[in-house]
């Protein structure tokens, strides 16, 4: 009786433990599920702001426009129908507020009761018009032709060069500048952090005497724990003004500021991972080198570094991963302009910073909201790729031993 009870208890505990063990896996799966469920939503949405429509005169040959074309038309960069496959005639833009230029208040009636009718007249009269107005003013006998906007495609999303998620009448959801911004800032960070971090790791692992090492190591570990928002704050009050002064820029919030801050933040990771890797070099290997007349430095660069190269690459990849995913520090110092970066002295905007800055204002379920989740998907896939690479590299390393 008591034995059975015991057995039951053991089984129960094992169940609880197994269930706990599965929490991380379930979480990852749920993250994937929710991110993609929301994020993929944008591909079934048209980029016209919700509750509005675009229409042309019936005689117009054009019946479909892309989001980019719409934006260019409203920015007056495209001014002729010919440019979008229509007749050679100037495009006449009509937005709802323009109605007062056509009709007096009386003609629109009390509470704009006649507005739908008036819009009908305007659209019917002008063969070159492009009208943009809210759905609610669409009369049932509308004489114009609705312009269909294609759904956002994966290609438009990934290769689009413009990120204007709230612009009217058609939102622009090109994430290329954000992806490039993220990679740009991270690349700069790793260019700063890798040489410094490696040098420090080599120094700590092979050159420093134990006393110095025992002082430096905890200091570096400590810095891994400083919150990113504090690094961001430091960047904001020290590095940003410094860059502004040194390079004589109008603003100091630049990719360079982001790279410097991220580089500093990636240092502890790079140092400790690559130092650990170098320390695993077998003593016998070092002794063999010294016994052949190599000195310490030759042993370091001819034996220890080649031997720990996979650990060092792991360190670099992890450093990049940290930089790519970092949110707050970048948000605070890069200036967040969503343009494709050309130099390190321009403001840039990264994917995490975009999510953090915009999610609060994006109405839930709207296209902007979904686009931010799609950005989350991209970010997730980037870091997943990095994790899997690290797993792969370290598995390979074990195999080689």
């Amino acid at each position, binding site marked *: 009786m008591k034995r059975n009870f015991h057995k039951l*208890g*053991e089984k129960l505990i*094992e169940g*609880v*433990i*197994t269930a*706990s*063990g599965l*929490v*991380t*896996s379930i*979480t*990852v799966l*749920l*993250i994937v599920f*929710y*991110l993609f469920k929301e994020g993929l939503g944008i591909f079934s949405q048209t980029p016209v702001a919700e509750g509005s429509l675009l229409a042309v005169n019936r005689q117009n040959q054009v019946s479909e426009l892309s989001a980019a074309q719409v934006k260019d038309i409203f920015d007056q960069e495209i001014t002729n129908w010919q440019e979008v496959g229509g007749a050679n005639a100037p495009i006449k833009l009509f937005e709802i507020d323009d109605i007062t230029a056509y009709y007096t208040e009386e003609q629109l009636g009390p509470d704009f009761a006649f507005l739908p009718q008036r819009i009908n007249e305007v659209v019917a009269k002008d063969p070159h018009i492009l009208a943009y107005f809210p759905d609610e003013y669409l009369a049932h006998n509308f004489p114009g032709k609705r312009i269909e906007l294609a759904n956002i495609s994966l290609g438009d999303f990934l290769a689009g060069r413009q990120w204007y998620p709230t612009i009217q009448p058609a939102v622009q959801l090109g994430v290329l500048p954000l992806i490039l911004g993220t990679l740009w800032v991270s690349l700069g960070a790793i260019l700063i952090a890798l040489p*410094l971090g490696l040098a*420090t790791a*080599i*120094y*700590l692992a092979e*050159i*420093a005497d134990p006393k110095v090492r025992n002082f430096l190591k*905890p*200091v*570096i*570990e*400590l*810095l891994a*724990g*400083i*919150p990113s*928002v*504090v690094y*961001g*704050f*430091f960047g904001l*009050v020290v590095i940003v003004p410094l860059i502004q002064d040194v390079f004589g820029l109008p603003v100091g919030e630049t990719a360079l500021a982001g790279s410097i801050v991220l580089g*500093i933040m990636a240092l502890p990771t790079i*140092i400790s991972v690559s130092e650990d890797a170098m320390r695993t070099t077998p003593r016998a290997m070092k002794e063999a080198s010294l016994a052949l007349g190599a000195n310490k*430095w*030759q042993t370091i660069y001819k034996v220890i570094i080649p031997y720990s190269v996979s650990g060092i690459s792991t360190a670099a990849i992890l450093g990049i*991963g940290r930089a*790519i*995913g*970092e*949110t707050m520090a970048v*948000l605070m110092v890069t200036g967040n302009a969503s343009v494709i970066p050309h130099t390190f002295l321009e403001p840039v905007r990264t994917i*995490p910073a975009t*999510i*953090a800055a915009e999610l*609060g204002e994006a109405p839930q379920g709207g296209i902007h909201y979904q686009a931010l989740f799609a950005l*989350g998907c991209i*970010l997730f896939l980037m*870091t997943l790729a*990095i*994790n899997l690479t*690290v*797993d792969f590299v370290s598995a390979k390393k074990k195999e080689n031993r």
Partner: protein
Amino acid sequence: MAFGTPSPSHKSKKLSQSIAFFVFRLLSFSVVAILLVILGFILVQGISVISWEFLTQMPREGMTEGGILPAIVGTLWLVVGSMLFAFPIGVLSGIYINEYAKDSWLKRFVKLMTNNLAGVPSIVFGLFGMTLFVNQLGFGDSILAGSLTLGLLALPVVIRTTEEALKSIDNSFRVGSLALGATKWQTTSRVVLPMAFPNIITGLILSIGRVSGETAPILFTVAAYFLPKLPNSIFDQVMALPYHLYVISTSGTNIEASRAMAYGTAFVLIVIVLLVNLLANWLRRYYGKKVKMN
């Protein structure tokens, strides 16, 4: 043949070694100097702001004066809440991986997923926490939603330290206990866990440091821009130190006027991290000694 006098090759070897070592020493010390400058700068700028009033009062005048009490209290709630979630599950999960799981695809899968979760950017945790806890489960912006999100973020850290701590315990202890007729759980709970405890606790403390400084996961799950009252329940929103620092240094009503408050807040955050690290180091040493004496 003769080696009594230094050979020509020796000289050039020695020179390149001297140069290389000099460069490495220089770079290493500049790295440490950079890091210490950051710490020192904030500590020096912040210390003058710290006062009893600063720590115990509500923010006033558009967060340019007064204190940061609600942010401190909020962060405290979040730390406690997330640890209540992450610690038991993390430790049990570590036990599962190291003690219970058979060497199967499931174990490999769980390890892989734990690794991947550790690499997920914190803003993605924020997105996830918002969809699942805030919207789907209907917790709203609340301590509950924020703590769960932060707890998930801390989970891989707790699991890893538990795993490492358990791994370092010699198998003979387990075999010895099992041979005496103890069950698996008895062995785990009475022999293995107590031995691993100091290291597990160290991991827990370090993850407290991590959780208290995270901003991105709480942006959309709990953090309030300005809320001059203390929370009453886990369904309330709170202010939090890292978010507060972000707000007053980038988007407050008067950024220049709240600079002092920002330094003070950064100071408090750094002090928390310092204390957490000191405590962890002290524990490590304390238990290290005890183990040696036995």
